[in-house]
């Protein structure tokens, strides 16, 4: 196996990461999966990916390397570092903290400093720089509105959360290094279930807020019906990243939006949720009449912990242009908005993530009271 062929993938246990690993291996590349702890690589369809710990995997094989992105030298011992450095022809950096609401330091450590460590690895002066495919996010655009182009990054935007901000900074680091380091950037939007089945192994990010809203935990949110959520199927993201890695010479220097065909509007979401009796649809209130202080305490708690992190997603209309991706891939995902949304909801309901809410506090209390009174009746009967 030549150095040019081996690929190091960070974040290999993530839902997207493992799909990239599998695709690269399927394309005949030897893949080294950088993992934090001894973990299994589970594909989105639930199957385990076969791996080894062989230091030098064969073509099409996957080998796991234990490391830590946040440590100097990727947390590898010097010998392993040296071996890896000489062996690797390309790095795909997909490791990141993607869920919202975590401490700011965590995003800085993993998303920003982690990217710095990967850049150090790629251009540590020990040899020719190792080319990099950096997995960013379309939401480095923060709270911008309207058309967002792949070539743009810093447009003076504000950010809705630390995640977006950290990914913006990380992408800035990669762009700054691009003078001396061959790099390409892929920006997925909101990653959701597979295009055909709607399946997703791990319900995170948008799914968390969807669960909160459809269970009626939060019943009103400040939102515009015209706001857009760009949902992209996981298979398309993995396809784009893999293609960029495999055809790096064509992709170098470019940024690619891995996004859905058409962004879903809250109007679409509202109409489709109405088709599911067991799913509650939140009231989308014009932000100017929404009053956070009117929410009951429990609802307020859910709002603060979960929904508030997504506020800007419910009020902004942005359209990610993916001309570079469409040209590079020769196609776009062929998805219609409402049918795709239904597929995602159907899957989430089928596996029990959505649709069968645990009883609310009031129901639990009412049930307890009923049981207690039944219990006392029984006790009286037994006593008699």
């Amino acid at each position, binding site marked *: 196996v030549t150095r040019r062929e081996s690929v190091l993938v960070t974040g290999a246990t993530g839902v997207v990461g493992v799909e990239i690993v599998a695709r690269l291996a399927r394309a005949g590349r030897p893949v080294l999966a950088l993992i934090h702890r001894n973990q299994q690589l589970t594909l989105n369809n639930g199957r385990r990916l076969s791996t080894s710990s062989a230091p030098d995997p064969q073509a099409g094989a996957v080998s796991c390397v234990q490391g830590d992105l946040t440590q100097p030298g990727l947390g590898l011992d010097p010998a392993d570092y040296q071996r890896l450095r000489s062996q690797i022809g390309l790095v795909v950096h997909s490791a990141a903290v993607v869920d*919202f*609401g*975590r*401490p*700011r330091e965590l995003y800085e450590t993993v998303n920003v400093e982690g990217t710095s460590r990967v850049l150090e690895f790629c251009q540590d002066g020990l040899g020719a720089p190792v080319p990099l495919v950096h997995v960013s996010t379309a939401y480095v655009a923060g*709270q911008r*509105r309207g058309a967002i182009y792949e070539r743009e990054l810093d447009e003076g935007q*504000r950010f*809705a*959360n*630390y995640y977006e901000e950290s990914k913006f900074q990380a992408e800035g680091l990669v762009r700054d290094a691009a003078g001396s380091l061959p790099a390409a950037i892929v920006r997925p939007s909101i990653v959701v279930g597979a295009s055909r089945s709607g399946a997703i192994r791990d319900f995170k990010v948008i799914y968390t807020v969807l669960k909160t809203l459809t269970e009626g935990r939060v019943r*009103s949110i*400040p*939102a*515009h*019906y*015209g*706001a*857009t959520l760009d949902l992209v199927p996981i298979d398309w993201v993995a396809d784009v990243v893999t293609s960029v890695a495999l055809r790096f010479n064509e992709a170098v220097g470019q940024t690619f939006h891995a996004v859905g065909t058409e962004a879903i509007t*809250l*109007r679409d979401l*509202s*109409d489709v949720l*109405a*088709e*599911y*009796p*067991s799913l*509650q*649809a939140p*009231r*989308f*209130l*014009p*932000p*100017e*009449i929404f*009053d*956070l202080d*009117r929410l009951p305490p429990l609802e307020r708690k859910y709002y*603060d*912990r979960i929904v*508030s*992190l997504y*506020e*800007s997603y419910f*009020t*902004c*209309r942005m359209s990610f242009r993916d001309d570079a991706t469409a040209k590079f891939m020769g196609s776009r995902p062929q998805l219609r908005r409402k049918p795709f949304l*239904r597929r995602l909801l159907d899957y989430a*309901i*089928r596996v029990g993530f959505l*649709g*069968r809410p645990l009883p609310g506090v009031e129901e639990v209390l009412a049930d307890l009271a009923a049981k207690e009174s039944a219990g006392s009746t029984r006790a009286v009967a037994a006593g008699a």
Partner: protein
Amino acid sequence: MILSEDRIRYLLAEALKLVDAPEGCGVVLEGSIAEGFGNETSDVDFLLLEPGDHYHPTMPSILFIDGARVEVRLRAVEEARRQAAEVSRVAQAGPGHLAGIDQWHLDRCQRLVRGLVLENPELVDQARLLKREEVSRIVATYFGEVARRSARNALLMATLGEVDEAVAAARAALLQGVKSWVAERDEAYLEYKWIRHQLERAPDGHAVQERFAALDSKGAELVDAGLYVAECLQFLGELGIDDCEPDAKSISLVRDREVTTWPLGSRVHVVRHRRDVMALGERAARAWRSIVFDVPLPESVAYLDEQGAGLRTHVGEFFRLRLLTARWRGGAEIPPRSSYTPPPAAARPVVSLDGAVAPADGEPDVWLVPLPADRFASAGMALSWANLMIENAREDAMGALGREQWRVFETAVRRMLGHACRALLTAYGVFPLPALEEAPLRLGVVSGLPRDMLDSVARLQRDMRPSDRERATALLDEVERVVQVARDKTETSLFPASFASADGWRQTMEIGCDWVRLGAYLDSQFPVDEARDLLAGGGPQPTFRTSDTALAAA
């Protein structure tokens, strides 16, 4: 046969004197007498077959001859062949299609092939595109499939705890199953009434007859519905009707994408096929929200039971109302034995801010709103809007009163009055609404409004010009009384928070948003463009600037 051939030929000859029969017809005696059934009161049915292709009315000529009721039908040979070809085509498409066939067509076919030929047998043979055995097989398949559907219905109803429905469906399945069994044995007469005679004639029919009679005669009150259904379904299996074994795990409830759920205020509404709005009572709404679809029925039922005792029984009604469908394993739909739409609810007014108004004589589990869906949504939006506009006009009136701007004051109180009248009209289902200034003149279309309020409106309409503060205050008070009656009548005042507080105002806006959401889905008429703007937000106009709460929370 109950009649001799001489008697039959005599009746035919007499009938032909009375009807205008074409030359060279074929003649067939069909129906129960030709089958060998019938009694003294049975009709004597003659079919005249005319060569070639013509259209003839379906309705027979009904004659009374010598104490007998004689029916004479005329059809063209090609017409009969076409009907048979259609039946054959549907039969070849499979039992599922056959069950949905026009039963009249099938009946015409079987009567023709099984009738007694009286004249021109060559011509009759031309008309008989299907052979007698083929028709028997088709009829057997037809009854087999309808029996299967009834059996699955019975199982569904029994599992949902609907005893009477379950027993009725099981009885229907029994009869249809036995009809299939006798049709396999050349007893393909379609009507049910001679089944006992058919069983008596069929080889080995005696044992089936005994078992059938025993099951059929069991009263619902004597049996456990589940057990009874299981027994009936087992018997059907013995008759050769497969794929309807008594296992509810084979059934699942399925959503209908064209049936959508809309909370309006505190009430849950279901819109069927974008046309009918059904409002749900509290328990029915709970049941509706608790249905787990696409899982084996016992799982759905267990979940419903967890949510509340007896909730499962609502599901049977949802099924009959076509708010959901049911499927057998493998995907075949289980159509309800009869679906229906309830009568429009006798509610006056029809619409409140809180959705559909329940009928005056009590709140049913499910009721049909007596307005088509898009008009209902438009009326609700208009009602919300009128109430907001009353508040808006009142503010103007108060301001003008303070500064003694009498022209402004008059315009404002006229607007208040106009919006109060529009609120009343729309609550009673009037839509589109008359223009603001004409609304007071249209109150006559709503019956039952208090006389003194109508007088007040008429008086105000004639003169609302204030000359001084005292007169202005009196005018405003009178308009306020009209507003109050309008709110009492439209049940707006029952609404949790009145319009007096900022909180109430906001709540009204929130419920207005519920109506707008439904209106958008139905593409209903919006009262004003501002209401539509609620939907178009996030566009070019300035949008909400997210506060830093997100950052602070993280």
